């Protein structure tokens, strides 16, 4: 459920310049997790810091493995 909520939140962010501006300049992962959790909750979505950590690991792995067919 949490992974689905994060994906739904991601879609909403992609469509919202306002949400993007709140998130895109944050360099610190802990702060980023805090803001995502709050903004997602405001939209009725449950995103926990652990979901973001898992998404971070998956995205890094996908990037590093981008040359593997």
């Amino acid at each position, binding site marked *: 459920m949490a992974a689905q909520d994060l994906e739904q939140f991601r879609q909403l962010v992609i469509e919202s310049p306002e949400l993007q501006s709140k*998130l895109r300049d944050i360099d610190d992962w802990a702060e*980023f997790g805090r803001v995502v959790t709050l903004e997602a909750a405001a939209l009725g979505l449950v995103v926990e810091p652990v979901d973001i950590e898992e998404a971070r690991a998956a995205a890094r792995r996908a990037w590093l493995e981008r040359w593997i067919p």
Partner: protein
Amino acid sequence: MTAAVDLTGWTPIRVSFDGTTPMIDWCYTGKERFADSFFDQTVERCLRRPFSLLFRRAVPIHDVERLVAERPDPAGFVFHASRCGSTLVSQMLAALPGAHVLSEPPPVDTILRSRFTQPGVSADGLASWVRTIVLALSRPGSRSFYKFDSWTAIDLPILRRAFPDVPWVFLYREPAEILGSQLRRRGAHMIPGVLPPELFGLGADGGVAVPPEVYCARVLSAILAAGLTELERNPGVSLAANYRRLPASMFDEIAPLFSLEVRDEDHRRMLDVARWDAKNPALEYDPGLAAVAMPEVAAAADHWAGPFYARLEALR
């Protein structure tokens, strides 16, 4: 996708395929200057930011085509035979104010390689995809320059079809020096099997049954031959530039070809860049590190690539 999509500050960092449709993976890069030696180094830095790593967007190429259709053509293309000073040229261009330099951007290579992975695509279709991804990588308000992978010289006809008016330079060097350097530390194209052997006109065995110096010499000869052929076909918009004349030829040949106005302060900045190792700017450039080839390497270089080198020299 709706017309309201705004990709300002976003950069295509990768291309994948959804069936036969190229999907462009956009990453928020903000105002980050692509001033590193290679495109992916800047992308890596951007991907350290949480938003840029996690909030990417994939857009089909036909939607991207509409978004970038009005962007101006690039200001210049740099092709090269590898180990020829191309990174130095791209770094010197990046020192110019308002320049946006894309150095070996993988999205362009993925699209070009799709002629092997997507056999149904026509020549016009491929040129259209190339035009779209190149323009998508440009930055509105900047003059965009592209330094391609060395093997992209073989795709010059496709890039010329996509951008017939864009001026381009082909950098080359004594084949034995290139091979000497490559055999110490090979680029991807010099490792059998990494790129399709057909790209270099090699047989189905990919040329793996020959000694390393012969394989590398054949790859190099294919790149030099491709550059030479297109230089001969396009004398008005192209230039052959030998490594040994850098950085001087940056000012007296390449800059005029690209219609660059190099002011005194630009000249100083560009020369300052030339003091440093282009691939590792923490180190001063040491011409004493120039490659020296073993006799068998020099012989293979001379046999396979020597004739094309001589004809490139005769063009100048």
